């Protein structure tokens, strides 16, 4: 991509406008809100509108500003370490997300592999079939599973009918339902980058391996898997990072003992109306996710440079 960067000519007014419009929008609506979240996470909860103190008002003059600055404290963060609910939520979010990512990979890899190996003529159709569920509502797709997983739901009815089980399995409102929900909702995110890297794979390498007497499973292990690794990594990040902060799936499919930080934050904000603590929860969540997010971006950059 470096090759088509503009020559070092002087930038026109127009190109400055082109850069600054989306830049300013993102600074105001993406970066500035994080600074506000950080500031409120250092504030104290209060029965007021807005429900925290201090509020900064530059009209009060500098003295008030410095006083307010002094009133900020780390009390909310200390609170997060003291109450077991929070660190348990973080831990179980990361665990649930990691297990779900692994399961998604297990299910998604054969699909992507099958797509990349199918005749060229039907590949666009298969691609379309993977993308289509992604366009339909997330909420609807999670909702659809409630009817299937319920105690008197369709899955249990089918299994009872077939005589596999004698009494209904309890799946809804357990962590298993959360895994199913995450795998189902995020599957296209993993299949698409994986398919892209599998499709690019040079078939002659596999043929060479075969000619030299390498058994197929070994060829897969030594050639296909390592070469598809960029796709695997990109796909896993795309599943793992949003899954850690997932709210809808644990709320609708999980049980009361399913701890996930997105749900904890939601309850803290909407039910307890404790804005400072929910801000602190968000700041810590962001700090946990910063490392995978940065890794993901580097990966994306490397991949787009390889394309360019």
């Amino acid at each position, binding site marked *: *991509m470096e090759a*088509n*960067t*503009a020559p070092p000519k002087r930038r026109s007014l*127009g*190109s400055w406008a*082109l*850069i600054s419009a*989306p*830049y300013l*929008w*993102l*600074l105001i*609506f*993406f970066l500035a*809100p994080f600074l*506000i*979240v950080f500031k409120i996470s250092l504030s104290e909860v209060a029965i007021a509108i*807005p429900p925290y103190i201090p509020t900064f008002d530059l009209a009060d003059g500098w003295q008030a500003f410095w006083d307010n600055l002094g009133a900020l404290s780390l009390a909310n963060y200390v609170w997060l370490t003291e109450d077991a609910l929070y660190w348990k939520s973080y831990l179980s979010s990361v665990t649930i997300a990691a297990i779900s990512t692994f399961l998604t990979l297990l299910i*998604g890899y*054969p*699909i992507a592999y*099958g797509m990349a*190996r199918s*005749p*060229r003529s039907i590949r666009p159709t*298969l691609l379309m*079939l993977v993308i289509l*569920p992604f*366009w*339909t*509502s*997330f*909420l*609807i*797709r999670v*909702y659809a599973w409630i*009817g299937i997983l*319920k105690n*008197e739901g369709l899955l249990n*009815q089918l299994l009872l009918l077939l005589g596999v089980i004698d009494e209904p399995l309890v799946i809804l409102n357990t962590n298993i339902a959360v895994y199913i929900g995450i795998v189902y909702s995020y*599957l296209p995110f993993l299949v698409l980058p994986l398919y892209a890297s599998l499709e690019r*794979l040079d078939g002659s390498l*596999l043929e060479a391996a075969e000619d030299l007497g390498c058994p197929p499973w070994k060829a897969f292990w030594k050639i296909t898997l390592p070469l598809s690794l960029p796709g695997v990594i990109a796909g896993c990040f795309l599943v793992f990072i*949003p899954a850690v*902060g997932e*709210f*809808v799936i644990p709320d609708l499919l999980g049980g009361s003992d399913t701890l996930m930080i997105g749900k904890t934050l939601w309850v803290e*904000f909407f039910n307890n109306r404790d804005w400072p603590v*929910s*801000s602190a929860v*968000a700041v810590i*969540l*962001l700090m946990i*996710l910063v490392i995978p*997010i940065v890794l*993901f*971006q580097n990966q994306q*950059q490397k991949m787009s440079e390889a394309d*360019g």
Partner: protein
Amino acid sequence: MTRGPTWFNITSLVLGFSFLYLPIVLLVIYSFNESRLVTVWGGFSTKWYASLLQNEQLLDAAWVTLRVAFVSASVATVFGTMAALVLVRSGRFFGRSLFSGMIFAPLVMPEVILGLSLLLLFVAMDQARGFWTVMLAHTTFAMCYVAVVVQSRLVGFDKSMEEAAEDLGCPPVKTFFLITLPIILPGVIAGWMLAFTLSLDDLVIASFTTGPGATTLPMKIYSQVRLGVTPEINAVCTILVVLVTIGVIAASIVTKRQQVQRERDERAAFGNEAS
């Protein structure tokens, strides 16, 4: 990688696609269920669709959602396309890595964080919450998706035509509308559609940033789902699924046709040159 399909590949595709589609198919089937109990089949009926038309709250919510989605997708497409041009064309400038970071981060950022942070911004700005705040919030995260979609279209773009136009004295803005935009148009349309469906679909960010009088359809569906599964919700979901499916398939046919047409034009142009 073109070798004959093996049994393993066919099985994994069939199982994979059944997994992806079965839940949605079941949901659609049960929206035509006569019985109020979602899991007991009581015969074919369209009564839940009829009762939807009576449900004014739901219709109101649907109308709000459509307006938010239309406005935010349109604004997001303009800003997202600009951002894509900046990412691909502007070379180095001060704060470039911050810029690309702000484009990619919202794609994976948990929605609860985006929602909370935007709400706190609106509170700090003392902005009354409702239609416009949801619209601004949706525009912000949707423009990043648009930027990524348009960017992928721009990367494989032949710059020589733009350069030719500029050498002939065509002003940059005119060059963009006459040459660049028609070529990247499929990406821009796909970006708009993605932004539209993301906005249509969003529950978490809308719940944080909305105010009185601006309840969106996903919020309405969510509060009903918490009370239990009903055929009426199945009917709403079916309508949404059908609309989105028609939209996506229609768009892909149109872009396909355009692509074929353009390739034919290009071949014709080069053919004339040769002769």
